[in-house]
């Protein structure tokens, strides 16, 4: 048994338990140290992931391939940014506890298992480890009624989605007799093995996963959870779990159920159109920037799903490039949102950004870069993300989807440029407090990557290509 394949997960889990013990045994407050250890753990794990060998282990239940490497690295990057940004915020909000990074770390372990799952059972175990940690994180500000509400809402709805997923898994197992991805794929290559019950099972699995990526019509939890959860948690939710769930969706649809493309393609098309349209239209009326980002993320998942709808290697490559760019844009945007603090109190209305360009030119410029990038204006990274998914859609002949997609991106650009309008064209309000160095670092680093992605797109695109090839055996 080749257990070294799971070395990154094992090491990270050990790190988690170590940090937990350390926090409990140490008498004084150790949030800062625990967070630093956690980020260090992410770093070590990242190195192990990047240098690890590909292969299948644990009786075919666990797979390490370029696809899992790509997504695990993205997850670790997103989680590191979120952990870094949480430090100062949690302290100022009075929720600075050492458990925070530990719970985040276990969520990441869950996500890494999800990404590497090669069996419906492993998939479920990883998903549940992730979800349970996320419930705790959402409700981490215990005394805040909105945070508790967010945690509870997420728990109930996510539990329902997990139930649906599990039901789908059981139907797939019942009608095919296996839960192994590769065996399923081989079986389904023969049309005689495709039964109606199995298709129903696949649809249930799809629904469960669509919930996790917050695609329409399973998006209802997103705005409330985004708004209610503490902002670093929202940032984390917007990055790592999205990558993990999208990776899972890609692998499940492409590898075991790849031969059922005609059956699930139209579903993905509908979900994608719905997400793009809702993301674009519902965000227009928002006044709270976290809520706006929730709708924005729904829209972006719609764009990413265009690639999956194409059902091709190009499409999967497009989704992966999209998610990579999305992680950096989102990290930066949330760093800017967390910098919005007046007289020690966090503010999160869009109108609080009024005249930011006069008060803090650097922050305004960074946020402007992220907004133009989210809108998909060229030379920013967001344009390349959209370019690759649309390319796949055009190649697959999905013209309706492509046209609706570009029009949705125009509607969406309206609310992104409105934020720029508020920052640059409106008269200045009161200044924000001095922001901590960590936020400046994250905003600057991701801002530079977003603005200058056009200089070095090849490594990312090539890595995504390699990863996409791995899920189409």
């Amino acid at each position, binding site marked *: 048994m080749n257990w070294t394949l799971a070395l990154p997960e094992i090491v990270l889990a050990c790190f988690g338990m170590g940090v937990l013990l350390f926090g409990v045994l140490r008498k004084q407050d150790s949030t800062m140290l625990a967070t630093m250890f956690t980020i260090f753990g992410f770093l070590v794990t990242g190195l192990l992931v990047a240098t690890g060998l590909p292969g299948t282990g644990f009786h075919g239940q666990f797979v390490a391939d370029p696809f899992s490497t790509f997504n695990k690295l993205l997850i670790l990057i997103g989680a590191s940014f979120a952990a870094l940004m949480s430090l100062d915020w949690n302290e100022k909000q009075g929720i600075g506890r050492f458990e925070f990074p530990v719970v985040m770390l276990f969520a990441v372990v869950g996500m890494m298992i999800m990404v590497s799952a090669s069996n419906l059972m492993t998939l479920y175990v990883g998903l549940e480890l992730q979800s349970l940690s996320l419930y705790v994180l959402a409700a981490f500000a215990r005394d805040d009624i909105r945070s508790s509400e967010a945690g509870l809402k997420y728990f109930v709805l996510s539990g329902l989605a997990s139930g649906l997923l599990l039901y789908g898994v059981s139907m797939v197992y019942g009608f095919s007799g296996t839960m192994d991805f590769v065996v399923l794929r081989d079986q389904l290559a023969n049309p005689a093995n495709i039964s109606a019950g199995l298709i129903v099972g696949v649809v249930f699995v799809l629904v469960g996963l669509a919930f996790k990526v917050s695609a329409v019509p399973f998006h209802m939890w997103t705005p409330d959870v985004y708004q209610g959860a503490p902002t670093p948690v929202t940032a984390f939710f917007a990055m790592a779990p999205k990558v993990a769930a999208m990776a899972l969706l890609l692998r499940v649809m492409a590898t075991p159920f790849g031969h059922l493309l005609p059956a699930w393609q139209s579903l993905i098309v509908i979900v994608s159109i719905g997400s793009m349209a809702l993301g674009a239209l519902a965000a227009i009326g928002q006044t709270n920037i976290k809520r706006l980002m929730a709708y924005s993320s729904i829209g972006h998942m719609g764009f990413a799903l265009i690639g999956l709808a194409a059902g091709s290697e190009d499409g999967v490559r497009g989704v992966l490039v999209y998610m990579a760019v999305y992680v950096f844009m989102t990290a930066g945007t949330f760093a800017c949102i967390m910098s919005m603090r007046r007289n020690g109190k966090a503010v999160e209305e869009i109108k609080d950004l009024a005249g930011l360009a006069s008060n803090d030119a650097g922050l305004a410029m960074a946020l402007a870069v992220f907004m133009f990038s989210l809108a998909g*204006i*060229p*030379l920013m990274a967001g344009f390349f993300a959209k*370019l690759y998914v649309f390319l796949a859609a055009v190649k697959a002949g999905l013209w309706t989807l492509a046209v609706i997609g570009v029009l949705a991106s125009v509607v969406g650009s309206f609310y992104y440029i409105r934020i720029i*309008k508020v920052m640059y064209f409106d008269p200045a309000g009161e200044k924000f407090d001095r922001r901590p160095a960590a936020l400046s670092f994250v905003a600057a680093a991701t801002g530079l990557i977003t603005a200058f992605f056009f200089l070095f797109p090849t490594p990312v695109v090539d890595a995504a290509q390699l990863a996409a090839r791995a899920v189409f055996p």
Partner: protein
Amino acid sequence: MNAAGFPLLSLITWLPLVGGAVILSVRGDEETIASNARWTALWTTLIVLVLSLVLWVEFDPTDAGFQFVESVPWLSDYGLGYKMGVDGISVMFVLLSTALTPICILASWESIQTKVREYMLAFLILETMMIGTFCALDFVVFYMFFECVLIPMYLIIGIWGGPRRVYSAVKFFLYTLTGSVLMLLAILAMWMHAGTTDIPTLMATSFPPSMQTWLFLAFLASFAVKVPMWPVHTWLPDAHVEAPTAGSVILAGVLLKMGGYGFIRFSIPMLPEASAAFAPLMFTLSVVAVIYTSLVALAQEDMKKLIAYSSVAHMGIVTIGLFTFNEQGIQGALFQMVSHGIVSGALFLVVGVIYDRIHTREIARYGGLAERMPGYAFVFMLFTMASVGLPGTAGFVGEFLVILGAFKVSFWLALLGGAGMILGAAYMLYLYRRVVFGRITRDDLRAIMDLSPREWALFVPLIVLTMWMGIYPSSFSVFWEASVAAMVKHHQAAMESAVKLAGVIN
């Protein structure tokens, strides 16, 4: 790399961004930053202008192909490269951009007092994007420059514009973006078909007629908004009126030309059959634009709005010329674009001069300026005449050639297009009479000052260019003659083969 082994075009394109980085790095109090930003921007744009004059000198007008070609692999696995190059058509637009930008910087010297650093930065970014648009030899690279122009222009209108600037900026942004995204899909479709986005290769590729129709419509959505053609021109008057003077100059001078350039570079050579099929539609829209917007211009109370509507009419002449598919028409359209770039830019500067003094653009507020401002009256008259198309000025040559080309297509087209010239004379002379002649009735006008040396420095190069283009047009048209001839030949060959193909099928 070109024959000289030196990436001149990339240097011209990206140098303004270097200037922008320098401006960003300036530290000190507000006054120091503003002054440094102004001088850095001016010097950067002047150096770019001088470098672009090397193009003027070194360019070989007898060669119809692309020159100064540079090619660097970028996403080479997907047939996408960073390719730059100019032919006779694009080199003029590059020069137009590099010539107008320093004038814009100089025009904003005193009128822009807030956020000077950001303003100059926006203009330098804009210059990079404009030059890049005209130099790009890869369709995706072209698209990126073409779209990215929106960012600085949106900010220029929105931050330094007039009272309704937010509305205008958002309208400008959304109108142009909607058109462009559809073009992006067309580009992707071409990419699928040809396996590359290299522009010279795509020009040689023939696309199936049914595909051409859709591609043409998608391109039309983008370029028609940019030109702008009737009925999608409504963003232009708003944007012009609210933009600061220099913003209007660059909008009228260069940004509108991107639409015309798009037609001549992509629609006509790449989609010959669809272009021919859609020519009647283009003529109709253009004629409506010429006559309707000229009439609308007659009724305007705001000087900038009047000139904005006149721009729509003049660009209507351009689109008529382009779709005649003969040498006179296309050459006339190109000439008209370059001359309109200079003349309408100058007219916006003319308006800017009195706006800076009296802070209103309402025509009725003025009158009798000739008495106090003889120099100004002269400059204004010269550009009015050029806009009307008086022989001996830049405006005449282009319009004359277009009408000539239109005659070859249809008498009525030429007649209706020519009607625009008469209406143009009417609204421009009416404007001139109301502003410059008559008696001074208001006290603030009695104390108004004539042009300052800085303002003369703005106008003298534009006057020289206008007269030069009018008196000796061939020193400009020689650049594109070979390219246009090759294009017309390519179009005719494509049409003939289409006719032959139809004959085989029948």
